[in-house]
């Protein structure tokens, strides 16, 4: 199948590649760019393991074509870091609150939680649960994931206040 060129920014880096028009964004990221953080859990956009950020929105990259991201800005788990270059507050929160076990859903979960906190910097527990309802986890029972997101929200809000 003839390939077409795509250009995008992935985790702040300019990327130019040739892809088959039918190539899914998740395969493009994982196989062409070797960004294996986002995972494939269901291929039907239910589980959210493949969640990445595309132009300021959470998308399930298993049901987006790579060419749909042409000209776009993509953020994957590999692009997360804290202000000091260390861990992002969400990464820290997941570790501190034991918000992960097998780790397979974690990259999608963190990426989705990041967008949620951009949309709602101070969510209630119910809002966190609602906001993460497109991301499935079979190990944790979500309770500690909610805590992890709350931990990050508090941390990020405190950083924000300190900066102001």
């Amino acid at each position, binding site marked *: *199948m003839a390939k077409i060129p795509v250009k995008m920014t992935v985790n702040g880096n300019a990327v130019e590649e040739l892809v*088959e028009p*039918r*190539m899914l964004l998740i*395969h493009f990221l*994982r*196989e062409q760019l*070797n*960004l*294996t*953080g*986002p*995972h*494939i*859990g*269901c*291929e*039907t956009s*239910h*589980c959210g*393991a493949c969640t990445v950020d595309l132009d300021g929105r959470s998308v399930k990259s298993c049901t987006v074509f790579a060419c749909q991201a042409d000209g776009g800005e993509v953020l*994957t*788990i*590999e692009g*997360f870091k804290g202000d000091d270059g260390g*861990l992002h507050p969400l*990464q820290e929160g*997941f*570790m*501190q609150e*034991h918000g*992960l*076990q*097998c*780790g*397979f*859903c*974690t*990259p999608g979960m*963190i990426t989705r939680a990041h967008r949620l906190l951009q949309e709602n910097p101070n969510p209630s527990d119910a809002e*966190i*649960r*609602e906001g*993460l*309802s*497109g*991301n*499935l*986890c*079979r*190990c*944790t*029972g*979500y*309770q*500690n*994931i*909610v805590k992890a997101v709350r931990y990050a929200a508090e941390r990020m809000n405190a950083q924000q206040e300190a900066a102001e």
Partner: protein
Amino acid sequence: MNDVAEMTVEEREATLGGIGSARKRKEDARFIRGQGNYVDDVKLPGMVFGDFVRSPHAHARIKSIDTSAALKVPGVAAVVTAKDLEPLGLHWMPTLAGDVAAVLADKKVHFQNQEVAFVVGADRYAVSDGIQAVEVEYEALPVLVDPKKALDEGAPILREDVVDKDNVGQGPRRHPNHIFAWEVGDADATEEAFSKAAVTIKEDILYPRSHPSPMETCGCVASMDATNGVLTVYGTFQAPHVIRTVVALITGLAESKIRIISPDVGGGFGNKVGAYPGYICAAAASIVTGLPVKWIESRMDNLSTTAFARDYHMTGELAADENGRITAVRATVLADHGAFNTHAQPSKWPAGLFNIVTGSYDIPVGHVKVDGVYTNKAPGGVAYRCSFRVTEAAYLIERLIDVLAQKTGIDKAEIRFRNFVQPEQFPYQSSLGWEYDSGDYPAALKKALAAVDYEGLRKEQAEKAAKGELMGIGICTFTEIVGAGPTRNCDIVGLGMFDSCEIRVHPTGSAIVRLGVKSQGQGHETTFAQIVATEIGLPSDDIVVEEGDTDTAPYGLGTYGSRSTPVAGAAAAVAARKIKAKAQKIAAHLLEVGEDDLEWEVDRFKVKGLPEKAATMKEIAMAAYSNIPEGMEHGLETTSYYDPPNFTYPFGSYICVVDIDRFTGEIKVRRFYALDDCGTRINPMVIEGQVHGGLTEAFAIAMGQELVFDEMGNILGASFQDYFIPSAVETPEWETDYTVTPCPHHPIGAKGIGESPNVGGVPALSNAVVDAFAQHGVTHMPMPHTTWRVWQTIEEHGLNK
């Protein structure tokens, strides 16, 4: 002498991060950065992909397979069928249960989505095109879906390959669709107890077919290196060493030339114990092409072909005296194993450990009979987050005791107190053959009842009932049997179910620990380091734990059935004690005293009566490589192969409160309190996490999970659109609590925790739902308790009027 010299004993102990410490997990550092290494992340030079042509029919004869068009598809390298595997003897494979299973369909397909051909190509897209182009002609055959009709005289015969065999691996059988009959207990004495009983109850209880569905599906990358003849297979294996042995047995390759690597595994829950056609086909394709071949299962393939669980059609009966004291239990079970007997149980246990069906109760006599049958459904019968059919047994007895309570009018908590095995009865010999190690069931239930204000809840329930509202209180006081197992009665393909640990202490006082089990999210890298830290006095932060590579880890039987802590955890403690014994000899040499003059304190040997004279483990480690007593060998390393003397018996008391909308049938879990006793607690944070996860899986099973088939054997709903995986929105909040009754035969007293919440959670939830309807004479409602089903019960009893 060292940097911790100024610390108090308590501070030194805290520095170790040993048993009891809620230390953060070591594995998290890579997972939170997206740097885990799961099988689909493995990329080898020249790697190609493979995937299956699958059958649309549940039962059909294959008339022809035409691969010519597929081979012309750009990027397709090969199409493999049973005919191609036959010369290699790989078209069928032996199962762990003594049966055989088709690798690629040989003349017939036996279930929908069965593997018919394996297409190999440059990438996933080319393979997908190739699959579309393979032409298979089928002749449809009558389909057998209902296991209750499997043994009928005119039933379609499924397995023509074994039609003449009177034994397919697990004892005599009486029909071409019959797999085994298994019986335990005393049938006559049980019958006598029933005939004399003041009260008897009987209930038909189905534990429906469900699926473990971990977030990561199954997959592998097989790579045959033609230069040295070594076959390396990366894969989602819960039991890598067993897989290596099975591959050696199937292929005839020397086991030393097979390397199995389980990289990070994205959850297993029993799904990743078995050997699947994908592994065999990828390996065969790599052997033939000389290229690394990757096979990754789709979610639909996962739900419809690899490793279903349960499907136990049970009839349970209890006999009791007028005080509700149980005098006998009887269970008659029809087990639907699908097309091939590929269930994963220790060889001698065709129904797993189902005879734990006496539960937490002192039942003088019992009888269990299980018949396994073939149907036109995917093969399997794995334990979904449970130890070998324990979930089915716990569900049955915990439902039955509620039915008995309703029949006798005794409170559901009270009837449990009346029947509990008492603390002084341990070790307790059950009438169905198990020796329970330790427990204090009354204390656990008392604590649970107090925690939720049980009396207050019952009062509230009565008040609500008077207003026509539906509120249910579910109690479950389960006992598990885990940690398989003693090699005298537990084996898999003849291999004793021991497990192992190797410890190497390096000169500067850090260590590497390797085990025969394999974490799939349980946190072994964290918790096993804690066991060794406490035992040998080196900080857990300096102890690296490795598992999953058969070239480096000692042989073990893998992680399932909550066996990692009971068996491999015990091996870790025993290995550490061997290290410590050698360290003591070196310390005596360093301190110029006799071995008996030394005593251990946290991280060092001290001379008795001269506390300032001591050698720390760190100093001893260096000495092991530089200054050893005469006649001793250098080094500080050892391996332990631990054969557990018995199973372990974790238990718990769970209480669940539900409110049911009497107009819609919607169930709201208002409260769920889980008290677990897993003996010695290694890492409270990890334990709590495991309980949360297990309860959420229990919630999924009780409220929505079921693999359903139509009369043609079509699987209905093999995707996450239809198969219920609760999200954060549906999942209730969990309250956890604990008691500690150490296991008397385990070196550190631990029993295992991962599966308790699933085993105990399902009956607690189900009992709560039924309890809401108990006042209307309802004794049982089939799982899963979907809104539709609950609404039907409401409608039937006119409760929405």
